[in-house]
């Protein structure tokens, strides 16, 4: 009954309209190289605050899913992934385009992205509720180690040096200490400015890091006069036959499972999932020689992987309050702005809203299916939009969006500073995600760490007696030292 109400709620004209707006916006953002799903959700977040929570989230969920799907469109048509998650779609997608099957490739991208999204939504339904129920047993010590686990996992899978990731993550933790402290309400680093009593506003920082930072990086590194060669959408064969569809099913089912697990790991996004799944499917395939040469199976698994990650990332985000990727980190910030705290309590205090979110995820995929199959011929024209036009649009949206959150000039200044910081991080090969995660987890980590220590009169043994803490700490340590161990093992083998 609750589920029916959730779906009917999303089908209300106003909510559904924002879902469609989100899908269309995400379709544009994702398809245009340089505009990522993270940037899209970050830039549109301030607008969502002016809407009812269900409308605001319908738009953000629409953008998130649609941008990931649309990233495959430019991967197929111009051999450049629109979002990092679509990197593996270039391997076979562009080859199919060169062979004259671009229409078929685009439809495979749409159908399998949607199937991946729907599969992961089902996993979300099955796993989020038991996981949240399990997390209800967590006390301050478990939450402390969970926050550490989230941070270390994000650092270890970010692909860049763990030291760099950790440094950025801890800088995020440090900036989270600005404002009144959560136990004694003592003013810290507020510079006598009342606007800083609640801490640094997370959303403008995020918009700056992922929006302005990225655009500055593009201004610095790319040739603005470069002209794109966009392939036309053509080919008499537009869809797979039922027989071909059946043949691809086992590889895609396995891909769905792997991607949901990868998505649930903090920091491991669609790019990692799609590359892992493409490689795995190639190993298992009867025709591995076709991979990278326009394989239908290769393209389908990379497309399934992109969107199947979303359900996994949403599972940890909703049930534990730990973001699975940068977009879910932003969504956590948005939930907080609406006065809701992601984690097990959300399932008790705002259960109908959780159901609404899941229903939005499912319906967003269905809207993408219709939108994707009907608009594929428009995309070559969209891809011809000059990147300089996009730069101006994004810069303006970032500035006005940050101001719109609280009508505050301080937010614009914070956004600009964060933008320059984001640019420096990008140039210096530092990951930006751990900074946001550090800022998000800082309060959770500090308040629970201090509460846990107050329970034991300052004795740290509490973190080594609970089985949950031991498991989480062990995984955290292992995830940090594993890259070094792997390097040493490789050296010895060589």
């Amino acid at each position, binding site marked *: 009954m609750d589920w029916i109400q959730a779906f009917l709620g999303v089908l209300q004209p106003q909510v559904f309209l924002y879902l469609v707006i989100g899908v269309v916006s995400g379709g544009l953002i994702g398809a245009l190289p340089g505009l990522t799903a993270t940037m899209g959700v970050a830039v549109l977040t301030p607008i969502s605050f002016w809407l009812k929570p269900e409308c605001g989230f319908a738009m953000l969920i629409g953008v998130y899913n649609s941008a990931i799907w649309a990233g495959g469109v430019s991967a197929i048509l111009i051999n450049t992934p629109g979002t990092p998650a679509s990197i593996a779609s270039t391997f076979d997608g562009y080859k199919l385009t060169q062979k004259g099957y671009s229409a078929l490739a685009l439809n495979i991208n749409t159908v399998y992205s949607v199937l991946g999204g729907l599969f992961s939504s089902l996993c979300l339904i099955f796993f989020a509720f038991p996981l949240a129920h399990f997390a209800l047993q967590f006390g301050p010590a478990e939450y402390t180690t969970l926050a550490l686990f989230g941070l270390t996992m994000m650092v270890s899978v970010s692909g860049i040096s763990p030291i760099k990731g950790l*440094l950025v993550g801890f800088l995020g933790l440090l900036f989270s200490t600005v404002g009144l402290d959560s136990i004694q309400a003592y003013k810290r680093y507020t510079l006598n400015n009342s606007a800083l009593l609640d801490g640094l506003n997370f959303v403008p920082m995020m918009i700056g890091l992922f929006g302005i930072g990225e655009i500055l990086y593009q*201004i*610095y590194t790319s040739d603005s006069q470069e002209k794109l060669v966009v392939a036309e959408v053509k080919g008499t064969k537009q869809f797979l036959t039922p027989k071909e569809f059946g043949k691809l099913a086992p590889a895609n089912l396995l891909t769905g499972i792997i991607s949901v697990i990868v998505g649930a790991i903090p920091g491991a996004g669609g790019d990692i999932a799609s590359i892992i799944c493409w490689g795995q499917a190639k190993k298992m395939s009867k025709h591995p020689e076709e991979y990278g040469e326009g394989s239908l199976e290769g393209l389908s698994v990379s497309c399934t992987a992109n969107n199947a990650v979303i359900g996994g990332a949403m599972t940890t985000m909703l049930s534990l309050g730990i973001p699975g990727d940068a977009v879910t980190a932003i969504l956590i910030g948005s939930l907080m702005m609406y006065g809701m705290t992601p984690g097990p309590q959300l399932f008790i205090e705002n259960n109908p809203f959780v159901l609404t979110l899941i229903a939005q995820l499912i319906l967003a995929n269905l809207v993408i299916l219709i939108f994707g199959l009907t608009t594929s011929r428009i995309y070559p024209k969209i891809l011809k939009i000059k990147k300089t036009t996009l730069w101006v649009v994004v810069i*303006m949206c970032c*500035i*006005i969006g940050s101001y719109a959150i609280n009508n505050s000039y301080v937010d614009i*200044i914070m956004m600009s500073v964060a933008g320059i910081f984001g640019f420096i991080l990008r140039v210096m090969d530092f990951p930006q995600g751990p900074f946001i995660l550090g800022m998000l987890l800082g309060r959770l980590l500090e308040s629970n760490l201090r509460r846990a220590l*107050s329970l034991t009169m300052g004795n740290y043994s509490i973190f080594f007696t609970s089985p949950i803490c031991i498991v989480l700490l062990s995984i955290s340590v292992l995830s940090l030292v594993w890259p070094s161990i792997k390097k040493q093992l490789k050296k010895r083998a060589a």
Partner: protein
Amino acid sequence: MSKDGLMFVGACVIVTLFFMIPAFSFPGGTTDGAPGPGYFPILVCSVILLLSTILFIQYLRDHKKYFQQNETQKKNLPKLLIAIGAIILYTILFMFIPFIPLTLVFMVFLNWLFGRTWRFNIIFSVVFTGVIYFVFNNLLHVML
């Protein structure tokens, strides 16, 4: 040694000290053993200093140049600095000058900086300023 890297580490250390030094004068913990408000910042700062030291040593051995790596970056540097300056100036003037004229000038400037034709520049700037004003001011009721 990587000069860019060492400068970055130096900046991290300065920021960390800015947080760490005042934290020592924060009140102490409560009688039930809960640490005081300075505990967490000091803990985090200590880890950052440790990580900065490791990174400092790595950058001493590293010879990578992060800024101005290639010709494109060298060519684009003035454009980047002007764009950053324009954004900062816009955010400052945002407090003093009405939205429409300020944004119009800002967008014309950015389009000119990015090498767009005057015809496109004027039309795009006028239309986009109008769209932003309408969406935020009229639809979302943000006071611009």
